[in-house]
């Protein structure tokens, strides 16, 4: 039966009580005219449209994808799929690139692979000769396969030797990684989805889970409908579905997360809701933390964040008196100016109460994109492969041995370059060769007019791998058509360390090739070799790349050594670490409360949360963390841009349940496009009234950096803040500017370097009346006031 996940996003309830296992509910969608009996085979995979990673089987008939079905055996979704999972894949059937394109006399024209790769290699070689490896930059994605990332990591770090590699994971998940590294010594998710089944409270920090991971929210709704439901607390400036179901909703002013967190931590300390034994045995830094948060009384928090002091007290009490709390954190925290500090504060809350490493008590520092986790693990995102520490010579030596190159080839003199800096180098012309794969920075990066200028300039040769002629591809010098999900085999890992195998179900269109094939071809043409004269990389197939990765990960927190394609076939996804000792994977890490802060094991020695200054090896050794978690503190600071007379409103940007990233796929899926066809701006009733704006009116939203024209949605967002979804590019907007990132500021968190999209001052002007309501969904946080109330 086809599930209607458009109107009914979360589906029918299958309530369950605390401690029970989440019941199965299988969602299926087959395209019109196809019956179950027509399906020739079901091919195992996992959904690639958010970080949840729901297990799916892809229905194939006549060598075409014809439908999708959730995998009942999978631990993540137990058969369920959300709107994107059921319908989004259809976007892959339209408007695909089928041949390489090269720029000739200013125009992109079709070319053969040989010709296109020849151009890429010529330019790459010439620049390497003239300017060396620092002239090369790679900007990848959160949507490629683990095998592709690892292959590129080896080419970039061992073949070329450039530190300039990052992914758009910088925009979505960099802070998750950074906050885990600061608190626990290495990346690695402490919690597990199973914790959702037994917790007695859930805290959501800037995480609109109802829309960003709809199936995860279905699990939470099922708990809410069952016996012993947990209490929810939400920190979010919008009245999301999650906020509606929460006992306490702290609708903080954007840019004040750190103040509210300091207030919550202070309340725990004031009421002595502290597990002193745990804190003494397993943490360092309590006194400093207590000192820093001391001034954040509920009244002070109320003043800074514009929330009620009693709500701060109530939220803290729930945290302080519950036995098993799960916290989830996402972009509301990650895309703000003190991103790492505020996310670390969430870790602090759990450490103060000893609430991690046991069932029901967990931290889920979420990821945005489906394969962001693998970008982090393999080290194409500004880390060293396998959560290794670039400041640790021994870690570098391990990689050098594995890759059989001189350690000096592997860039490790400073942290690998982050995306915003990479684009800055391209702007200045010192990076002259920029390879972008599977992402669309001309829509997703802040301050788009600047990004378009950089990509369009002759200072930098831009190569783009993509399945579509995206806004970014249009500015490239060479465009290489990529095979997408289900058109190639590989693995990827979700938020709670669950690894899924995604098998090739169909042939890619035309001459498209997987990113892995493209990069191996590049490496072979460049002739990269190791010390023994073997080619870099040593493999040319996904499974061999996976085996290479297993070796690289061995002994590190993200240990895949006990996994294989064979093992991943058939059943549920498997959680890393998976080793000879733990052949079925590991539900929870840190169960012994020994953390990864040993000098010789940690991924980073840590940073100053205010400036990002790196702690030195000697500084770290002197503190003797030795397995104890780091409690780190920072005062709240004012955001980089504040509303004022000219631009009186604060801008926040984000997602809707029906679209993914820049809509290259979901915008081409009819059901999803219809559900959320165009951009909008959400505004509160108070602000709408003051500006004479009514539902559906066409308005101009302006910041100092640019402007867009979109329809107004009068919603239950907090007064003084407006919200624009970031999915909609200008390319298919009919000539009208509508991309949220025309408005956003170039600024980033000092530690995670994640851009502060949720900050920026704007003004709104009514341009004309609309013909009906704004094109914003009424089923979600963007609901019209009238619908939501009535």
């Amino acid at each position, binding site marked *: 039966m086809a599930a209607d996940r458009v109107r009914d996003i979360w589906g029918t309830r299958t309530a369950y009580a605390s401690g029970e296992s989440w019941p199965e509910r299988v969602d299926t969608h087959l395209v019109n005219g196809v019956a179950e009996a027509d399906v020739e085979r079901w091919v195992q995979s996992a959904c690639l449209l958010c970080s949840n990673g729901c297990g799916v089987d892809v229905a194939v008939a006549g060598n075409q994808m014809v439908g999708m079905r959730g995998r009942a055996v999978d631990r993540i979704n137990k058969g369920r799929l959300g709107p994107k999972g059921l319908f989004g894949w259809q976007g892959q059937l339209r408007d695909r690139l089928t041949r390489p394109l090269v720029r000739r006399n200013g125009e992109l024209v079709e070319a053969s692979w040989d010709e296109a790769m020849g151009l890429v290699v010529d330019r790459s070689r010439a620049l390497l000769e003239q*300017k060396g490896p*620092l002239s090369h930059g790679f900007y990848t994605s959160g949507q490629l396969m683990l095998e592709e990332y690892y292959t590129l990591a080896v080419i970039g770090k061992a073949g070329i030797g450039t530190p300039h590699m990052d992914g758009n994971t910088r925009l979505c998940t960099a802070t998750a990684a950074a906050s885990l590294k600061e608190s626990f010594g290495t990346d690695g998710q402490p919690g597990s989805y199973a914790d959702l089944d037994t917790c007695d409270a859930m805290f959501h920090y800037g995480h609109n889970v109802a829309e960003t991971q709809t199936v995860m929210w279905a699990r939470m709704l099922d708990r809410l409908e069952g016996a012993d439901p947990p209490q929810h607390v939400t920190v979010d400036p919008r009245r999301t579905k999650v906020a509606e179901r929460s006992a306490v909703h702290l609708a903080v002013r954007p840019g004040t997360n750190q103040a509210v967190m300091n207030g919550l931590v202070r309340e725990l300390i004031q009421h002595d809701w502290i597990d002193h034994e745990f804190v003494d045995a397993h943490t360092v830094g309590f006194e400093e933390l207590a000192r820093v948060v001391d001034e954040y009384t509920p009244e002070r928090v109320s003043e800074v964040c514009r929330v009620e002091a009693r709500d701060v007290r109530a939220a803290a009490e729930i945290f302080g008196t519950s036995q098993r709390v799960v916290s989830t954190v996402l972009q509301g925290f990650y895309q703000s100016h003190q991103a790492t500090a505020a996310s670390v504060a969430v870790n602090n809350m759990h450490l103060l109460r000893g609430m991690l490493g046991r069932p029901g008590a967990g931290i889920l520092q979420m990821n945005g994109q489906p394969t962001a986790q693998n970008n982090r693990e393999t080290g194409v995102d500004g880390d060293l492969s396998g959560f290794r520490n670039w400041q640790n010579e021994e870690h570098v030596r391990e990689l050098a041995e594995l890759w059989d190159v001189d350690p000096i080839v592997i860039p490790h003199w400073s942290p690998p370059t982050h995306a915003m800096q990479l684009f*800055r180098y391209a702007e200045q012309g010192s990076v002259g060769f920029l390879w972008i794969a599977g992402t669309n920075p001309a829509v997703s990066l802040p301050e788009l007019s600047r990004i378009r200028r950089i990509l369009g300039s002759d200072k930098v040769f831009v190569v783009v791998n993509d399945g579509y002629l995206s806004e970014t591809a249009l500015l490239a010098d060479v465009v290489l058509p990529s095979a997408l999900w289900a058109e190639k085999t590989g693995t990827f890992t979700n938020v709670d360390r669950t690894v899924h195998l995604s098998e090739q179900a169909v042939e890619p269109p035309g001459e498209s090739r997987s990113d892995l094939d493209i990069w191996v071809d590049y490496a072979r043409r460049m002739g990269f070799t190791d010390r023994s004269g073997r080619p870099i990389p040593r493999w040319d197939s996904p499974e061999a790349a996976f085996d290479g990765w297993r070796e690289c990960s061995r002994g590190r927190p993200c240990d895949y050594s006990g996994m294989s394609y064979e093992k991943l076939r058939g059943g549920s996804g498997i959680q890393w670490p998976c080793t000879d000792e733990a052949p079925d994977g590991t539900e929870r890490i840190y169960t012994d409360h020994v953390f990864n802060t040993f000098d010789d094991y940690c991924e980073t020695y840590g940073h*100053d949360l205010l400036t990002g*200054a790196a702690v030195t090896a000697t500084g770290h050794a002197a503190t003797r963390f030795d397995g104890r978690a780091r409690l780190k503190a920072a005062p709240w600071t004012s955001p980089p841009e504040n509303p004022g007379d000219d631009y009186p409103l604060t801008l926040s940007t984000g997602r809707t349940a029906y679209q993914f990233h820049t809509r290259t796929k979901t915008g081409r899926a009819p059901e999803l496009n219809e559900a959320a066809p165009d951009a909008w701006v959400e505004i509160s009733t108070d602000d709408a009234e003051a500006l004479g704006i009514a539902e559906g009116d066409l308005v101009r939203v302006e910041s100092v950096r640019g402007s867009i024209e979109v329809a107004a949605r009068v919603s239950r967002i907090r007064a003084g803040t407006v919200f624009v979804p970031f999915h909609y590019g200008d390319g298919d907007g009919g000539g009208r500017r509508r991309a949220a990132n025309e408005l956003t500021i170039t*600024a980033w968190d*000092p530690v995670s370097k994640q851009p502060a999209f949720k900050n920026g001052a704007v003004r709104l002007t009514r341009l004309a009346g609309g013909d009906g309501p704004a094109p914003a969904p009424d089923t979600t946080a963007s609901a019209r006031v009238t619908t939501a109330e009535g």
Partner: protein
Amino acid sequence: MHLATYIGLLEQGERTLGSSFRQVAHGHAEEADVFHTCLNLAAQCDAHVEALAPAIERYGEHKDAEPERLHAEGLSETRSGGIGLLRDLHDLYLLASYLDMAWTLVGQAAKGARDTEMIQIVDSCDHETTGQLAWLKTRLKAAAPQALLVAD
């Protein structure tokens, strides 16, 4: 007593460093992190000047001729490009280390004088100055290879 001389030097030095941070912030506004961080650090310098007020009240602040050559020059203009950024941050580093040592010396005197209030002031300000140095060093190290090897 020469403590007043050093307090005067600190006060003047923090003012100079604060305005130099602002100078670099605006001169390199295209480096978004440099812009925002330098403005934050300039605000720290302002706070240090304020924090010194009780000390000045107690010990005075001498500005005699002798220690003049100890005054660090501030940055009056910024250079441009990657190498310019490197040079300007390097200048800030010199200024900040000069102040770091001045705080240490005043702190030693405060201990000798058993002035607990002064010891506290010095501790918290010097802690931030050390943080400023750490950031400058981190940023300089990251910028150096690109600026020295590849930039035009």
